[in-house]
């Protein structure tokens, strides 16, 4: 299987602190992957590098076919190349309706003058409705996003990411603060999304990772500590040391 994202020996340090240390990582075209690790393991920094928010001191990040060098692109160019990112805190545009949020996320032309002349097509309307159904918000299209519950905001954000139709979806702690029922719905959404694209989930919560039932990468002090099924990595003595303390 050729890989969609190839991260090769990247390192980055902030004021002498090595947040990422010679990290390499690969993910295929249709794959669900969980990244776990204790606080400060470099999970968020890793996402920052892939999405262009942080530039690594060294290393390479290649994406897609033909391969793009992500280190030469801006955040918005990377997003347009097909990488979507969901932040830890649900960030939807609260002052705008659910419908407008989804409409903005649809994978249409994003340059200013094209957007200025944009007219909604029946096809876009259909896509918005289909997405709303998928994320379970079809009854809420006209409501302001700020009025939604925490879980609904998370789904709306996932829906907006799906609307972007990315090849790679990076999701930061999707289950934080969710009820059990909401978690099940979220797991379904992510697994279904991973049937047609690569999805990387960063998560603290082992129980949620088990539910995702996918390959797991364990990060520690900025590099990969172990990789494999959840049972495989939790049996690894290094992982046990890191998680339970020495």
């Amino acid at each position: 299987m050729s890989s969609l994202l190839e991260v090769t020996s990247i390192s980055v340090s902030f004021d002498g602190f090595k947040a990422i240390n010679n990290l390499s990582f690969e993910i295929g075209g249709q794959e669900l992957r969980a990244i776990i690790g204790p606080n400060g393991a470099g999970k968020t920094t890793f996402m920052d590098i892939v999405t262009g928010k942080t530039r690594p001191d060294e290393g390479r990040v290649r994406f897609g076919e033909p391969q793009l060098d992500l280190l030469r692109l801006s955040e918005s160019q990377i997003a347009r190349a097909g990488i979507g990112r969901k932040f830890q805190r649900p960030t939807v545009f609260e002052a705008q309706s659910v419908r407008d949020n989804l409409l903005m996320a649809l994978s249409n032309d994003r340059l200013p003058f094209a957007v200025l002349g944009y007219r909604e097509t029946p096809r876009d309307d259909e896509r918005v409705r289909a997405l709303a159904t998928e994320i379970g918000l079809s009854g809420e299209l006209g409501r302001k996003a700020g009025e939604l519950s925490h879980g609904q905001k998370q789904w709306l954000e996932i829906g907006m990411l799906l609307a972007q139709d990315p090849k790679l979806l990076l999701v930061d702690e999707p289950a934080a603060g969710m009820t059990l029922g909401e978690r099940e719905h979220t797991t379904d959404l992510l697994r279904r999304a991973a049937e047609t694209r690569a999805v990387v989930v960063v998560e603290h919560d082992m129980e949620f990772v088990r539910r995702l039932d996918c390959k797991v990468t364990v990060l520690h002090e900025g590099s990969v500590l172990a990789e494999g099924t959840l049972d495989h990595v939790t049996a690894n003595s290094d992982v046990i040391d890191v998680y339970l303390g020495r």
Partner: protein
Amino acid sequence: MQRSFFARQPSVLIFISLLALFTIAIVILSEGFGLGLVSTSFVKILGKTLCLCLVAIAMDLVWGYCGILSLGHFAFFGLGGYMIGMWLMYERTKDIVIASLEGAALPPTAEEIREGIGTQIFGVVGGSDIPVVWYFADSLFAQLALVVLVPGLLALVFGWLAFRSRVTGVYLSILTQAMTLALSLYLFQNDSGLRGNNGLSGLQNIPGLTDMPQSVLSVWFFLASALALSLGYLLAAFVVSGKFGNVIRAIRDDEARIRFMGYPVEAYKLVVFTLTAVIAAIAGALYYPQAGIINPAEIAPIASIYLAVWVAIGGRGRLYGAVIGAATVSLLSSWFTGGQAPSVPLGFYTINWVDWWQVLLGLGFVLVTLYMPQGIGGLFDRFIRKDAP
């Protein structure tokens, strides 16, 4: 399905109808065309106020909708005024020079006329050569183009430098103030080529229309200002009503998020900043022929801050709010500082409104910020049914 433009922006039709009624009423009451109940100087004040409303709409677009607190839009307004002022002053001086040379035995040469114009205009700053920036001053068409091009290019270059370095928030505000201050200080210099602190004057006299009395001219300018304001309102409503409006509101609310959705935030900011600078410049080009004079003090940093205050008092993020704020505050300001407001004798002290108006405005601003964060325009929300889905 998508609703029509006017259904999504109900304020547009209401605003334009009210403005049309107001305009007709003023024309009927004016000295130039109607009953003479409204003085020419008041028609000029109203015309100028409409221009200020237009620049307030620009400010609302850039700040209220896109979240860029620019404290430099009055610089663009002033530049627009300078550009049209150059043509007005040059052409009028040319007419005067030609008239004065008429009695000579030989018809004046082009060289003599140029020299005469140079001495007339630049005598006050100790020069007689026409500076190179006045190259196009005898062409109305060229100067009208410069009204748009000079502020537009300045905004484009300034915005490009600032936005691509990700300067945001209060730092950007400070930067725009610095730009404004630098421009005004430059214009204060005698060798800036724009007559230093004397500025440009006599702008109320329109070359080629010297026979038209000010009472008639003022009404024409008033009408032009009303037309420009309606068009500006329509344009701004169009910009904020569709997906573009949603994107710039999203930039205001969470810039990083919309960037990760693939929108080139810097390009949007640059478009909005430049567009609003051009609107401000057009407003200025209509304002100063009614004011009659422009000098660098008009571009002082405080003017741009006032602009932000008007929009905040009127209610940002709603176009009619900007208009209400600009109209209310600038009309009150000219009433209080024009000496019409009666002084209040307190026995031991007399409140003279010319001095105390600033205090009143400051208090008003604080009160609006504390108790009416939506501004005066926010009061309308009580009458308007919540936007149906």
